């Protein structure tokens, strides 16, 4: 909670939902064009922006379209002529948008998109889950995941820096409802700080130009496609340090640092750690403190802020210190494990002394995950380290199969 200590900018403190924090950041980033199509829990982001256009006359154009597919097409068209572009979606909306999301990623257009995480049907569901946010990591986008409303604001600004520098579009994921509809105080830096941090006159080799006409995404033969994919792969792989640098630069300007690709919590002497993304990290941190107090277990938290680039370097360093990592995934890869757990295992497999990595899946569809659940994970990890508990391919958190049986009997 650096906000209250940051007395200099107290005058710029606003109490807002994370959705409004996104909209404020988009306004401060002086975004030119947005494509808008409603879906819960994202809708109010675009509503706030249209309100700013109405009441404050901000120089932004929002195109209200007939689908998410078109919302991303609007962002793509705007970015393709060199405008700063934004859109937001969630869940089913992202799935419908998917084709254009892939086009933007592979066209190297620096669009920023907010995804307010939400599970996907069937069964029809509104609750929070991270699977949607993670999908674009396969589609040529960077993916960042902040923890609270202040960080949501800051991460949208940082996302434009990252996108403009790498020409890779960026998803900023935020926990649906848990953050999107919860108010917290955020501090907004002076506009001049933001203007200097993300100038609009960066090189735009992709921008269409009538003086020297070209087009995007024309056909190539099979002998060239692999090279384009390799180029995207390398750019994202090589961006790990850049995410750290952007975080450092931002902290010099605002006093707020989030650790770059990973926030390390109580890891210095930690033997076991839970790896987690987004709003649940707060509960995980509480749990780490509690199991230290209650049982003397040296526990810490690895908060993953950047999913693409995947922080292989930082994670490898942490893995040299801890003996077991429990990866808590609020998502899953059906039949295999948590999506992040499988990536953590991939990243660490080549290490000589790699830690135990246990995949935990829970919280799908918004199911409550409590501090006690994280305490339990940390205790289990300690037992695994001490050889008192078997590592399993996947462990489920809060799975209640009896409840489903009961439900089926009743309907």
């Amino acid at each position, binding site marked *: 909670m650096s906000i209250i200590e940051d007395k200099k900018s107290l005058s710029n403190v606003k109490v807002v939902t994370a959705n409004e924090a996104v909209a404020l950041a988009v306004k401060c980033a002086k975004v030119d064009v947005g494509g808008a199509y409603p879906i819960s829990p994202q809708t109010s982001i675009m509503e706030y922006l249209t309100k700013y256009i109405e009441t404050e006359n901000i120089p932004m154009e929002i195109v209200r379209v007939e689908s998410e597919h078109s919302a991303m097409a609007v962002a793509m068209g705007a970015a393709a002529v060199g405008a700063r572009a934004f859109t937001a979606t969630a869940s089913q909306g992202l799935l419908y948008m998917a084709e254009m999301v892939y086009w933007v990623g592979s066209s190297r257009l620096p669009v920023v998109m907010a995804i307010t995480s939400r599970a996907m049907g069937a069964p029809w569901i509104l609750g929070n889950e991270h699977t949607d946010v993670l999908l674009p990591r396969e589609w040529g986008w960077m993916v960042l995941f902040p923890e609270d409303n202040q960080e949501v604001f800051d991460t949208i600004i940082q996302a434009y820096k990252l996108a403009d520098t790498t020409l890779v579009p960026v998803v900023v994921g935020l926990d649906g409802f848990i953050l999107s509809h919860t108010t917290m105080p955020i501090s907004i830096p002076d506009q001049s700080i933001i203007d200097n941090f993300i100038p609009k006159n960066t090189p735009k080799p*992709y921008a269409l130009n009538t003086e020297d*006409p070209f087009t995007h995404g024309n056909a190539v033969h099979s002998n060239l496609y692999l090279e384009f994919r390799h180029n995207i792969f390398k750019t994202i792989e090589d961006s790990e340090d850049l995410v750290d640098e952007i975080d450092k630069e931002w902290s010099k300007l605002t006093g707020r640092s989030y650790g770059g690709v990973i926030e390390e919590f109580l890891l210095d002497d930690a033997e076991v750690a839970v790896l987690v993304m987004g709003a649940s990290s707060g509960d995980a941190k509480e749990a780490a403190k509690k199991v230290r107090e209650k049982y003397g277990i040296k526990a810490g938290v690895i908060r993953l802020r950047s999913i693409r680039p995947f922080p292989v370097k930082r994670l490898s360093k942490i893995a040299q210190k801890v003996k077991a990592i429990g990866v808590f995934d609020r998502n899953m890869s059906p039949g295999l494990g948590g999506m992040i757990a499988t990536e953590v295992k991939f990243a660490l497999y080549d290490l000589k002394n790699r830690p135990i990595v246990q995949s935990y899946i829970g919280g799908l569809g918004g199911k409550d995950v409590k501090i006690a659940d994280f305490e339990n994970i940390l205790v289990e990890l300690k037992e695994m380290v001490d050889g008192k508990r078997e590592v399993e391919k996947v462990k489920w958190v809060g799975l209640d199969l009896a409840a489903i049986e009961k439900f089926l009997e009743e309907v």
Partner: protein
Amino acid sequence: MKVLIPKSKPAKGAVGKTGLWRTSKPVVNHNKCIKCVICWAFCPETTILRFEDNSVDIDYEYCKGCGVCANECPVNAIEMVED
């Protein structure tokens, strides 16, 4: 790392000799042709050659044989024949 942007400049045959894709080819019957240039306007590959007197012919190097021109010609002056 230098960024590879998949952009392309206007050029003839940017994706190679599309004429190789063809299984049947359009043949213009100049006796029937009324020089309306509808075929020229509709050809998706711009492979109808239009001359100064608005007579037309086919660029077989790039014509992919889709038959759009034959379908659009108001006087059936284009016939698709096996290639």
